[in-house]
């Protein structure tokens, strides 16, 4: 039995860590994790409303198994320790492969020692082959009696870019995870400026509800736009009447309401309840019509019903109800410190992968002697055609 020296052990570990098999296995592991997230709805974190909706849907779909599945972490796969460990291993492998790529790119500047079994290539003229290879952007190195053809530096460079890009991408994701945050389901009405919870950053919607302004460093995305109103009421003498959205709310003379769903408010002094809802059978947009229904309470009888578009004034008994159009936007705000690193990583990864598809790894050697040409390595089909025939 031959004793393995520490140097051999390190070499073997390096070989395993940089092997194609290991990285393929890690990628498969990540793919299984992602496939699980497609199959099982994942817990939303940034939006309490979305969380409540998700919970009721999950309970309806999985029934009594929901708590068990939750305990097993099946609804938080990408946030689980196992998935993160997998990504950490992937990053480690990529780093080692990047180092190896750099070393290989440097070493491959010069001609390598021919490897593999030599085969006689019939019907091959060496000078024609050399011309053909150079025409196909192969690099041809000569050290008589051998010729080496490969695609240096493009093959090595593509691999370097792909590994470097993937590593940058993971680094960007780590930065995002550590210091980034995201607020979802934020409702902002036009002309309003909202400070994001737990931060000093703000977002504001311009008067026409088309443009969102925000503090520097964050990215906002409008998920949907919808109508909204600023309501006020006055009696026959022009005296403003207090309005209340809930029984516990303090009475106010002006209410600003986003109409993402049905909304109600009361005018207690006039014993009126007003229901506001986006007009059914209309696409919901910033300036879509609003259905206004006014009920007498008690007894809960419908007094009037009308659809309004833009600013409007309604008179019900002695009360004048003024409704000004204040559209709203439902948006998400993201602070991502790893944005540029992730973006650069993505671009490098895509360019590197496309490069490695266009210029796959290929290196072979040719030798002329005894009036015949022989070759070894990853020989192109065009050279071996005669032999296969």
């Amino acid at each position, binding site marked *: 039995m031959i004793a393995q020296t520490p140097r051999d052990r390190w070499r073997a570990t390096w070989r395993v860590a940089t*092997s*194609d*098999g290991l*990285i*393929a*296995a890690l*990628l*498969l592991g*990540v*793919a299984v994790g*992602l*496939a699980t*997230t*497609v199959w099982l709805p*994942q817990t939303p974190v940034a939006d309490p409303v979305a969380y409540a909706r998700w919970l009721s849907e999950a309970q309806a779909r999985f029934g009594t198994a929901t708590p068990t599945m939750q305990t097993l972490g099946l609804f938080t796969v990408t946030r689980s320790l196992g998935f993160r460990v997998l990504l950490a291993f992937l990053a480690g492998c990529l780093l080692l492969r990047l180092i190896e790529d750099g070393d290989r790119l440097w070493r491959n500047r010069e001609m390598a020692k021919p490897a593999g079994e030599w*085969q006689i290539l019939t019907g091959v003229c060496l000078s024609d082959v050399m011309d053909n290879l150079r025409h196909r952007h192969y690099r041809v190195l000569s050290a008589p009696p051998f010729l080496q053809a490969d695609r240096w530096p493009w093959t090595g460079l593509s691999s370097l870019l792909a590994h470097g890009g993937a590593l940058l991408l993971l680094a960007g*994701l780590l930065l*995002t995870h550590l210091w980034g945050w*995201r607020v979802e389901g934020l409702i902002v009405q036009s002309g309003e400026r909202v400070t994001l919870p737990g931060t000093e950053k703000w977002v504001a919607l311009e008067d026409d509800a088309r443009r969102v302004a925000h503090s520097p460093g*964050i*990215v906002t*995305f409008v998920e949907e736009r919808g109508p909204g109103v600023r309501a006020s009421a006055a009696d026959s003498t022009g005296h403003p009447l207090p309005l209340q959205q809930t029984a516990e709310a303090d009475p106010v003379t002006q209410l600003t309401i986003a109409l993402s769903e049905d909304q109600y408010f009361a005018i207690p002094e006039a014993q009126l309840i007003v229901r506001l809802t986006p007009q059914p059978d209309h696409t919901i947009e910033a300036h879509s019509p609003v259905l206004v229904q006014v009920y007498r309470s008690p007894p809960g009888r419908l007094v009037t019903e009308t659809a309004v578009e833009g600013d409007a004034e309604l008179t019900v008994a002695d009360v004048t109800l003024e409704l000004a159009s204040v559209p709203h936007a439902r948006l*998400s705000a*993201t*602070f*991502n410190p790893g*944005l540029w690193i*992730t*973006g650069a990583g*993505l*671009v490098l*990864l*895509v360019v590197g*992968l*496309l490069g490695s*598809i266009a210029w*796959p790894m*290929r290196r072979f050697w040719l030798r002329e002697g005894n009036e015949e040409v022989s070759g070894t390595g*990853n*020989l*192109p*089909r065009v*050279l*071996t055609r005669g*032999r*296969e025939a």
Partner: protein
Amino acid sequence: MLAVVICTGLACGTLLAAVGLALWGGFRQVPGLSHAMRAIGWLAGGFLLIGALLAWQGDHGLSAPALRLTLMAALAALPEIHRHPRSSWGNLMLILPALILAWAGLFWTSEPSGAGMGSPPVALVELAVIICGGLGARALGEALSEIAALPSPPKVGGTEGGLEWPSAAAYALLTLLVGGTALVNLWQRGTMWIGTTGEGGLAGVWLVWSAGWLAPRQPLRLRAVLITVAALLLIALVAGY
């Protein structure tokens, strides 16, 4: 809709004939069989393309999955210009994905349009996804053909060449799609990942395909199995995209 059904039906028939020829060729030497197979492939691909174009142009009664399946089948059925000689089982495996997709398309064509999921593809991205699915179906045929082939000593000349072009093209397009989507998300929403089913599915398929692409050359079938899995997932995803 009748014209679409007729075209897809004719394509199914010609592909079945191709399967029959491939099986016949497996039992006895038939001269000129590969030429007949190629002609049948062109015919079936042509029928499917005409059917898909007719459906796309104005047949709103056709469900979106049927259109996607027919388009994918058309891409999978068209033969290669420079086809490498294969065994009869290899030829059979090459036809099989196109035949199954065409049958599935025919089945969905007869479904009422209300049962159809989504809407017909109009955006460039959707079209790219379907083309990717079609190339994936071709790659599936190649991979199945490799799995079905009897074990043989490693070929001289490595694995690069015409045999793998559908797989390479599908992987390149998939890389562009996944990378492009991630970049757009990053630019618009500040996050690479918004967690939609289509997006997660494409990323998952891309990862499996990458694993197949990187998998060791030996054993040869490991690569083919991984690409088969990735292509099957891709086709299922595209049909319901």
